[in-house]
C-alpha cells in the first residue's frame, strides 16, 4: 500500500488545467495558412486530394496533415528542406481548434486565418446547449478506423486530458448515449451495424464525424469496399478534422459545440 501511495505522490497532478488554452507544441501540424503568389507544389503530392492549387485551397475534411505540401524542394516536394514562412504557399500552424459544424467551412482559402476560424467555425445552437450543455454521453463507433483516432479518443479520458470533468463521456450502450462519434471511412461490413447503433440512440441525438476518414474517406476514399450511404441519410452535427484527431481538438470541438 505504501508503494501505491508513493507512486501517487511521485505522479503529482497530471491534468491540463485550462484545456481551452492548453499550449500545443510548435511541431504539431494543425490549421494551415495559405499564401498566394508564391511557388506551390503539385496537387499530386497530396495523398487525399485535399490540396487544390487553382484556386489555392485545402480541405481539412480530407487533409491528413502530413505536411507533404509545405515542403518545396528540388526533390519534387519530397525533400526535407522545409521552406516555411516567406517561400512556402502552405504552412501548417499549431492551431488545434479545427472542429466545425459546417462541412464547407473546413475548406481553407488564402483569406482564412485561425482566429476568425475558431470564432466562426462552430455554430452554437440554443437548444443543443440546453439539452446537452451539462452532460453529454457519446457512443463511439469505429467503422473501419485504423485505431489511430480510437487511441486518441481513449486518450481524451486519460488523466492528462480528463474529459469526464466536463460531463463528456464515452458510454458502452447506445441506449445510454446522446449521440454517436464515428471514426473510419465506413466499410461495407460496418454499414449495417453503424446504422443499427444510430437507431438505438434515443432522440434527440447527435452525430459527430471524427477524423479525415470519417469526414471524407481520407486515404481510403477510392476504395471499393466502402459504403458511406449513412452520411447521406442522416444529418451530421459536428466535423472534427485530423489524422488522427488530437485529444485537444476533439475536446475543444465538443466543448465549443455544447458551449461550455
Amino acid at each position: 500500500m505504501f508503494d501505491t501511495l508513493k507512486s501517487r505522490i511521485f505522479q503529482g497532478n497530471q491534468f491540463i488545467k485550462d484545456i481551452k488554452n492548453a499550449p500545443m507544441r510548435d511541431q504539431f501540424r494543425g490549421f494551415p495558412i495559405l499564401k498566394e503568389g508564391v511557388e506551390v507544389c503539385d496537387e499530386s503530392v497530396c495523398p487525399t486530394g485535399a490540396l487544390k492549387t487553382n484556386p489555392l485551397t485545402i480541405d481539412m475534411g480530407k487533409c491528413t496533415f502530413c505536411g507533404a505540401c509545405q515542403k518545396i524542394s528540388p526533390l519534387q516536394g519530397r525533400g526535407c528542406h522545409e521552406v516555411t514562412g516567406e517561400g512556402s504557399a502552405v504552412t501548417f500552424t499549431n492551431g488545434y481548434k479545427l472542429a466545425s459544424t459546417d462541412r464547407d467551412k473546413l475548406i481553407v482559402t488564402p483569406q482564412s486565418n485561425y482566429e476568425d476560424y475558431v470564432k466562426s467555425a462552430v455554430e452554437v445552437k440554443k437548444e443543443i446547449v440546453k439539452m446537452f450543455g451539462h452532460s453529454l454521453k457519446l457512443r463511439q463507433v469505429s467503422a473501419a478506423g485504423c485505431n489511430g483516432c480510437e487511441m486518441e479518443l481513449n486518450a481524451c479520458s486519460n488523466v492528462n486530458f480528463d474529459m469526464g470533468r466536463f460531463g463528456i463521456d464515452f458510454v458502452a450502450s447506445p441506449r445510454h448515449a446522446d449521440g454517436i462519434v464515428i471514426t473510419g471511412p465506413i466499410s461495407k461490413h460496418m454499414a449495417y451495424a453503424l446504422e443499427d447503433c444510430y437507431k438505438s440512440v434515443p432522440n434527440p441525438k447527435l452525430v459527430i464525424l471524427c477524423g479525415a476518414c470519417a469526414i471524407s474517406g481520407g486515404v481510403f476514399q477510392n476504395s471499393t469496399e466502402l459504403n458511406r450511404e449513412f452520411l447521406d441519410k442522416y444529418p451530421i452535427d459536428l466535423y472534427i478534422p485530423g489524422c488522427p484527431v488530437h485529444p485537444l481538438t476533439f475536446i475543444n470541438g465538443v466543448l465549443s459545440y455544447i458551449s461550455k
Partner: protein
Amino acid sequence: MFIKTKNNTKINLSDIPVLKIGELREEIIKENKRPVAFFGKDWGNGRVRLFVVLDNAPELLVSSALFEADEKSYECITNAIPAFHIFEREFYEQFGIKPLNHPWLKPVRLNQDEYEFFEMKGEEVHQVAVGPIHAGVIEPGHFRFMCNGEAVYHLEIMLGYQHRGVEDLMIKSPSNQLAESICGDSVIAYNTAYSQVMEILKDIKVSDKAQLIRKACLEMERAAIHIGDLGAIAGDIAYLMGASVFGATRTLVINTMLEFCGSRFGRGMVTVGGVDYDISEEMISKALKTFEKVEKDVDRMTQTMLKNSTVMSRLEKTGTVSQERAQEAGLVGMAARACGVDLDSRFDFPDKWNEELDIHKKPFHASGDVNSRFKLRYKEIKQSFSIIRKVFEKLSQYKNEPLFVQGGENAKDAFVISIVEGWRGEIVHIAMTDAAGNISRYKIKDPSFNNWYGLALAVRNNGVSDFPLCNKSHNLSYCGNDL
C-alpha cells in the same frame, strides 16, 4: 525446390521455381518450416499462381505453384502443418481454390453472413455474443463465447468488419500516408516496411542516419504501446492506479514523438528514401531526460503491481497458451514469445545495426499466461529504451549524412519481401512488379493474422469475465487482420 533469399532483398520473378501444387505441398511438408507468407496472384487466363515464403532464419525460402484455369482444388497443407490454417483460408477466400480436407474453412474477412458458427448443445450451455461494436472505444469484431456457466469452452472470432481493400489500394494509389493508415497503432512499423519495399524496388540506399532515426522511432512506438497496454491490463483488473500512471507515462513518450515529427504516433516521419525529419541534439538530450523519467515511473509502478497479491491473483495462470499450442497454431511476435516460442524478426533476420550497436536477444522465462505477457511487455520496454539510447549515441557520428535519397524507376518483374518487427510481431510486406515496373500485387501480413487464433486458445477454460484481460494482454489488431 526453393530459392533462398533474405529479408529486404529483391529477387527476379523468373528465378522463383514454378511447381505443380502436389510437388510444392510435398516440399513444404518436407521442409516443415513456419509460413511467413502464402498467397495467390492472378496469373491471367483464369490461372492463379500461389507463392509461399518460409522462415529459414536468417534466410527465407520462396517457391510457387501454378494453378491452371481448371484446377480449383488441392490437398490442404494444414493437416500436416497446422500453422498454415489461416493462410489457406485466406487463399481460398481470395481465389476460390479449395484446400481439400481443411479442418475449418471459415471466412477470414468476407461472407460473414454465410458462416455457420460452431454450436454447443447441453442443458447448462449458453452462448454469449459480443460485437461487432464493443463496449469500449475500440475497433469492431464479433466474438461468440460458448460457455458452461462462467467457464468458456471455446471462443469463435469473426472478423472482416474493418475490410477496406487495402491490398488493392496499395496497387492503385500507394503512398506513405496510406501505409501509415493500414494499422494506425503501428505507424512506424508499417511505414518502414512499405518504404523498404519501395526502396529496394527503386534501388535506393537509405543513409545510415535515416536508418538509425527509423530504428529509434520504431522502438519508441514499441515502448509507448507497451506502456499503454500495461495500463490497459491494470484497468481491466480495476487497478486504477496502474491505469492512470501508465496512461500518463505513455503520454510522455508519444509527446516526444510529436516533437520529433509533428504527430503523436509518428505519422510523417518515415518516407520512401529516408526520413522527413531530423532529430537535433537538443531534442535528443531532452528526449533522453524524458525517457529516464519514463523508465523510473514504469519501474516503480510495475514493481508495485507485481508485489500486490490481488493483482497477481488475476494475472497468474489466466489465459494460458502452452508453448506446443503456440508453435502449432503458428503464433508470432510478442504473443509467441510470451509462450516461449522465440520468434523476433529483429534478431532472426538481423540488419547490420544489431552488431554495430551491440544489441542482443535477452532470455525470457515464459509461462504463456497474462502474467507472462505483462512481464514480457515490461522487459521489452526496458530493452527498447536501451536500444534508443544506443541509437541516439551512434547518431552523432552521422551528422552530415542526408536524411533523404531520391530513387529511380521501379525494378521490372521483381519480387521483394520486407519484414519489420512491430510491437505485435512480424509485419510482412511483399510487392511484385510486372514487365513495365508497375506494382502488380501487394501482400500484407499483420502479426494479428496469425495471433487471433491464439486469443481463442487463451480464453478456453477461463471465466468469461477474464476475457478482457486475455484480450488486452494480446491487444491484437482488427484492421491489420482485415486490411
